[in-house]
């Protein structure tokens, strides 16, 4: 049996994974990254608007502080975020952002030559540091340049199929070399999951096609619960049709949202902040306009940037202008952009502390796949790019410490038996007679999630979704594959991903059905108010044979008691 070995193995090559690798690599440790695509193709590259830090570079009546940032984040989370973790993130923001600039990130600049910051939804100050509207691209390329400099090896186009757990610890993963079709165990003293979100469970998502939540499912299967899964962020402005992201920064620069009557409808939903309310409120407002017949035929509204002028658009929003031209045939300098809400971010994920530790020793998580929780029930724009760097760094550091302390080498037999068991499972799948196809089941799941577990939820819809997923899980066992070996077997990967997505969908639906209140992005039409007395707590979903079993966990509060949330 071929057995590879590293001190720290990071699954996922996006911002969080690369930042964790850079940190773990200090003191010349043996660190490796495993990614199913080349790191530069990770979805982080698509992030547009900005990364939050209280630098205070933008002209404002008073100086921004990390405490303001923390308050905005906690209020934005509808008071579900763990406040100690939020304070850590906001306190360390400046250091992480300045560090990226020192590594070469080409931020846009103020007149004084400092990093430029723009206003974003739900924020009291302009604190989203931006590189035109290609902030994710700039940050990811900078981190990959550092990874290149440090010569950290990457298992490119390998897929993590399973965690290996022995004696109550995570001791490695089973990796699939996709081009050669070989399953190879990789031993690691610490494994960091940084696999991003799972938007592709939905039909309409801004996420890349590759965002299937693999890391979340790896942990879930290994007995780790998933936290706050019902909190799914719907971004108000995705391009109508393709659902490619149009950054909140467009509204930050002054863009208007208008319905078919030409009204700036956000006046009805967030009279003070208008288009710059937090995302859950703007998404609900936009969807309501569409549902109540004030949208355009086909189900969209307009994002109007014409009044910003040609120069401002070319200077600060060139990326989204190109997206609108390429994918909707619209030049925002001349015409409004057709937009509709779409799934965008997963607030839920693998529960960790502020150092990225999960409840399984040896297993860490950071980035969108983790739930610390800093975003609670709703995430502010600009905080996701920030979380990848802050918690990527902290998880990398903690994982390295853990690796240093771990002296015992796990018994090779644990890997042998796990590999054998796994391979016989794969053989059984490959030999199955084909009665169903993965893609049909996948498409039905996506349609059900979008119809019944979207922006507006109610009990009958959620029950339908729960039933549907149960049926799909049964039909899934009848999926057979044409190709009988693993090399370049896309069908097999689709199948494997689909199993994970069905389970994640189930956890989302169960959490949403049980939570009889509305908070942040989880809106129940039948329970439209926030209920702090019964529901100021995190949901934990555990994998059981009949479905997801739920438990609950306290929210950590420091200095911010829950208040009414208006904008």
């Amino acid at each position: 049996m071929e057995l590879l070995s590293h001190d720290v193995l990071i699954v996922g090559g996006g911002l969080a994974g690369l930042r964790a690798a850079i940190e773990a690599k200090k003191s010349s440790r043996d660190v490796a990254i495993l990614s199913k695509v080349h790191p530069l193709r990770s979805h982080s590259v698509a992030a547009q608007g900005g990364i939050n830090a209280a630098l205070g570079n933008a002209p404002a009546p008073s100086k921004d502080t990390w405490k303001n940032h923390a308050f905005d984040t906690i209020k934005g989370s509808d008071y579900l975020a763990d406040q100690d973790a939020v304070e850590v993130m906001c306190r360390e923001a400046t250091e992480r952002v300045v560090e990226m600039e020192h590594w070469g990130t080409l931020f846009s600049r103020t007149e004084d030559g400092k990093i430029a910051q723009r206003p974003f939804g739900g924020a009291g100050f302009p604190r989203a540091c931006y590189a035109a509207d290609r902030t994710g691209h700039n940050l990811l390329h900078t981190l990959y340049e550092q990874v290149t400099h440090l010569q950290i090896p990457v298992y490119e186009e390998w897929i993590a199929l399973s965690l290996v757990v022995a004696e109550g610890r995570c001791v490695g993963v089973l990796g699939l070399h996709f081009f050669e079709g070989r399953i190879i165990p990789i031993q690691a003293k610490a494994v960091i999951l940084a696999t991003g979100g799972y938007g592709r469970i939905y039909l309409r998502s801004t996420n890349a096609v590759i965002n299937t939540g693999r890391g979340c499912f790896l942990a879930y299967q290994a007995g780790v619960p998933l936290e706050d899964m019902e909190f799914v962020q719907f971004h108000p402005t995705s391009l109508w049709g393709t659902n490619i992201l149009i950054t909140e920064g467009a509204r930050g620069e002054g863009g208007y949202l208008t319905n078919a009557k030409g009204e700036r409808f956000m006046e009805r939903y967030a009279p003070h902040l208008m288009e710059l309310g937090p995302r859950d409120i703007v998404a609900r407002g936009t969807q309501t306009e569409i549902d109540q017949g004030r949208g355009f035929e086909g189900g969209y509204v307009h994002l109007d940037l014409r009044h910003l002028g040609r120069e401002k658009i070319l200077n600060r929003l060139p990326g989204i202008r190109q997206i609108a031209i390429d994918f909707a045939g619209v030049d925002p300098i001349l015409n409004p952009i057709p937009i509709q809400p779409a799934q965008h971010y997963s607030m839920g994920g693998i529960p960790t502390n502020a150092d990225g530790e999960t409840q399984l020793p040896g297993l860490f998580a950071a980035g969108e796949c983790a739930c610390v929780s800093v975003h609670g029930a709703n995430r502010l724009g600009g905080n996701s790019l920030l979380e990848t760097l802050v918690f990527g760094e902290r998880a990398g550091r903690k994982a390295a410490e853990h690796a240093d302390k771990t002296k015992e080498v796990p018994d090779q037999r644990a890997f042998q038996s796990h590999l054998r068991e796994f391979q016989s499972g794969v053989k059984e799948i490959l030999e199955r007679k084909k009665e169903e196809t993965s893609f049909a089941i996948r498409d039905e799941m996506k349609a059900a999630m979008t119809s019944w577990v979207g922006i507006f939820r109610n009990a009958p819809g959620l029950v339908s979704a729960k039933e549907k997923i149960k049926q799909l899980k049964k039909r899934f066992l009848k999926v057979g594959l044409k190709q009988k070996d693993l090399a370049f077997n896309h069908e097999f990967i689709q199948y494997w991903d689909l199993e994970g997505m069905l389970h994640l969908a189930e956890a989302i639906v169960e959490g949403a059905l049980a939570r009889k209140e509305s908070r942040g992005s989880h809106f129940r039409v039948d329970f439209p108010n926030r209920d702090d007395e019964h529901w100021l707590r995190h949901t934990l979903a555990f994998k059981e044979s009949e479905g997801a079993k739920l438990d609950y966990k306290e929210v950590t509060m420091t200095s911010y008691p829950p208040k009414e949330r208006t904008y």
Partner: protein
Amino acid sequence: MKSNLLTLRIKRFHKERNPQRWIDTFQVEIRERMNLLEALLRIQDEQDGRLSFRYSCRGAVCGSCAMRVNGKDVLACRTHVEDFSGKTARIEPLPLFPPIRDLIVDLSTFFDHYRRIEPYLHGEPVSPQAEYLMEEEKRGEIDPYVNCILCGICFGTCPAFKKDPEFLGPAMLAKTYRFLVDPRDRRKDEILMTANTQQGVWGCKTVFNCVKLCPKEVPPTHGIVKMRRKILRNRVASIVSRLSSLFRHSSSI
């Protein structure tokens, strides 16, 4: 809505098969605003699960889906198939890179060249609390060269790379220029030395294919020409300074 059929003739490659290369023809029903990547994904789902190609963002920012369509190198996700309705589209892998499987090519040479130019900021030490100061105008100058998504299209279409696989290539020379003009990088002379070779700026044939085809409007040839000028200016300046020191020496005898 009128139903239209799209015909794709796709060049296949399997190392283990005999013959290794062949062409398969597929037909897909066109939907409004459909792009080529969607068409390929539907073929993979419904008709041939073995058809292999790379993809990720589907929004023309990640660089995964570069391929040759009707002789032109493009990103599949940004190629509208309505243009091909009623006609046949020829799909081939990105040229000048060895194929691994179907439309997936081996980009090792590409990334080897990337590593060769040491593409990370060699910055002057500065206070950890504050950022370097940079003028927005200067940022605007560097920006076109930073937008490269490393998709490989410029290499696939470059006659200099075709002639010499050791040629650093448009994307890497554009990145070389990106660090040269970044005031935070201290390597100025070193960078020009790397560029001042046949594998560097002097190998470029200034045909501007890369400038024309880059999906992100990066202008590698412009950066290459600017570096040539800088190199020549430095050479002239050093000749002048040597001549003038000789002159001073001889006149002091």
